[in-house]
């Protein structure tokens, strides 16, 4: 049975339409497999060749990929939630209540969005710690660390702007407190708060600004920086693996060296 589906797939790969879309053509030679990656606008961000041990669980704990996974969930559920949400006062609160109590699977999608958001923040930090403690931030990957910090800030800003959108008491006071913190910045703090809220109070302008930031500006920035982040992995020589890893014997040998085995 798998063989028959394989042959259907092979036939499909030989059609003219397939060739017009995927230039790499059929075949499983090293060249073909490299072309599949290199000639796709999405896949060419990634390395054409990856070492097997880069893809083991112990190399990265898959934390970056899992973060990207939660981001995809957030984009899909966020777009669906936008279909029932009006960023206006006081309609926003009524819309969130409708999503919870009236819309079919609305509560499921809203909770999925919220839990994924919390999970993404957790995973971003876990990814960062993992990269830090493995020393994967060191040259030539130091600029990718900087991009990662930008992505951390975007993630936190997405969390913060999304927090206001339900327009309940929790949201209102959280943004009141948060925007007052930003006014503590020397010299232009008050101006930053004024621009962020579009006024002196957390009101309709602030809700609309946070909505635009949350649904348009910050996700676009995130997609852009994630693309550069992925591309830099390829440019910086692939996912980080220590040269002496993960061969257990090599580890034992190095430990034996450290233990002061006399070399002749």
């Amino acid at each position: 049975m798998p063989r028959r589906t394989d042959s259907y797939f092979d036939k499909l790969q030989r059609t003219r339409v397939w060739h017009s879309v995927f230039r790499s053509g059929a075949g499983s030679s090293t060249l073909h497999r490299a072309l599949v990656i290199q000639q796709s606008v999405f896949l060419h961000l990634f390395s054409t060749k990856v070492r097997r041990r880069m893809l083991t669980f112990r190399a990265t704990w898959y934390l970056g990929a899992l973060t990207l996974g939660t981001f995809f969930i957030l984009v899909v559920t966020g777009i669906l939630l936008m279909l029932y949400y009006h960023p206006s006062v006081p309609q926003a609160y009524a819309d969130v209540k409708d999503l919870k109590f009236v819309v079919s699977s609305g509560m499921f999608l809203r909770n999925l969005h919220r839990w994924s958001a919390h999970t993404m923040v957790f995973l971003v930090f876990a990814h960062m710690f993992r990269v830090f403690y493995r020393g994967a931030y060191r040259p030539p990957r130091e600029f990718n660390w900087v991009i990662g910090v930008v992505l951390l800030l975007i993630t936190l800003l997405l969390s913060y702007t999304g927090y206001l959108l339900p327009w309940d008491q929790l949201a209102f006071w959280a943004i009141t407190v948060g925007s007052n913190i930003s006014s503590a910045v020397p010299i232009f703090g008050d101006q930053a708060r004024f621009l962020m809220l579009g006024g002196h109070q957390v009101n309709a302008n602030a809700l609309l600004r946070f909505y635009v930031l949350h649904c348009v500006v910050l996700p676009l920035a995130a997609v852009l920086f994630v693309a550069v982040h992925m591309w830099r992995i390829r440019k910086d020589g692939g996912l980080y693996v220590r040269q002496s890893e993960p061969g257990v014997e090599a580890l034992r040998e190095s430990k034996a060296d450290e233990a002061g085995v006399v070399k002749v």
Partner: protein
Amino acid sequence: MSEDKTTPPIEQEISRRELFTKLGVASLGVAAVGTLAFTYRFLSPNVLYEASPIVNEGRSEGYPLDSVTLDVNSAIYLVHVQEGFFSLNAICTHLGCMTAWKPEQGIIACPCHGSRFSREGQKLAGPAPKPLPWLKTWISDDGDIMVDRSTTIQPFAFLRI
């Protein structure tokens, strides 16, 4: 139970790996269909914040004999003639523009593409394919004229008071 020993081994038609592959693909298919169903349910609103199709047009004394009154908000004509009252949908049957009553000519005309209708909604000219529909009209318990914009009735079924 010595017969058991002679039982021939069951011939395996698919391998264990194939079985699990099929189970995996089938469960993905079930999940995909379920996702589509849930998405369809989510995209269909359960509650609409649209205006009610039933409109209260007030007391019949407000509509003198031989008058045609356009309720702009509800897009209906309330007409009082010798035979009684009736109401027409004011939306042109061509492409949905709001028609207007022309008292000097005694016709209903559409400004968009020139369709013309009689006072009873019959098509006189223009691209409109159908006459303006008559809407269900009745007197409420309080004595007000009520119109249901979602229910059409046969033409010339006058409401007599």
